[in-house]
């Protein structure tokens, strides 16, 4: 099962895109503007990676964005970036946990 299929299989996830740190678009599920989302999230992830390096925090694993109405989870695996749009901000933790569990299961 691919990472994108895995993440979009979660009921809380409305849409998701797969790209890389350079903002390159690879694939999308239920997202009409996959290229735009990949560009923004790739840029965001690369900037936060840069910040983490400078602050000595090690490799970036994920970024969670939360607002009043919706949330996003940006998940990194190597140079791949998955950005998932989550229906309710409260469901963000469940998505992150499912992602962590899935990764641990593969290790």
């Amino acid at each position: 099962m691919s990472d994108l299929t895995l993440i979009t299989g979660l009921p809380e996830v409305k849409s998701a895109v797969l790209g890389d740190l350079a903002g390159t678009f690879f694939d999308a599920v239920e997202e009409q503007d996959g290229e735009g989302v990949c560009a923004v999230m790739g840029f965001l992830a690369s900037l936060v990676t840069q910040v983490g390096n400078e602050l000595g925090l090690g490799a970036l694993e994920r970024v969670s964005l939360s607002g009043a109405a919706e949330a996003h989870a940006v998940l990194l695996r190597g140079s791949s970036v998955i950005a998932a749009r989550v229906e309710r901000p409260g469901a963000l933790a469940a998505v992150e946990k499912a992602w962590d569990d899935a990764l641990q299961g593969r290790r």
Partner: protein
Amino acid sequence: MDTILQSLLDLPGVNATLVFDGDGQLLAHRGRAVYDRDLCQQVSGWLAKAVDAVQLQQGDWESMTAQFADGKLLLRSLGLSRDGKSHVLALVADAALNPSFATVAIRVAMAKLKKALDGGGAASSQNLGAPPAPQPAASSSVPPSDSRPVLANSGLSWSKISSTGLSRIAVADPASAAFLSSCAKELARYVGPIAKVYVEESVRRVSPENPFALAASRALVEDLAGQIEDVEDRLKFRETLAAGDRLRFRTLEKP
């Protein structure tokens, strides 16, 4: 502001706290020796760019948490202060951070920081070495900011629009704000995240002097449609917004 940041730094696991504005200018910071002012200033610049990117995707963002192998970076939006500038609180933490304790402490600190920023009590980066000054706004009757954008020059303000990130334009009422949100979302289907910028520019064209009102909605839709290259897409965009327009007027006509 130093006192507030120091209270966060006292939390187990927190190694640095900083406040920066939308231009990436460091306003205040507290941290362990390694997190000096130069480093915090540099990081503020990068984080301000990251926040700009976040605004494109999620205009209503309130919090951002970056999980690293050896620690965490937490960002919290402090909204806009009276001078129209956005501000962000950032915390650099290691694995010893207790998220539950931190959440409460951060909320308290955010409320105090908003008061300080609104009341002009923000310490500049120049006086960080000075002893903590009293926070005039914290003890005054000025209410805390509710993150509602306020136009610095005209004094006009609007609500219900932060979700689109359209923070530099004025609207006449909440219905107009909601309409702009719909326009931005619909246009984004065809042009991507730049849609919000197009809506801002278009509002300035169709309503250059007055706050945007629904009376100018059709002119706005026509103007925005010009940004869509594909003829069929342009038609769909017009139809979708026209349908919303009819529904809105029917709702208004109901007794």
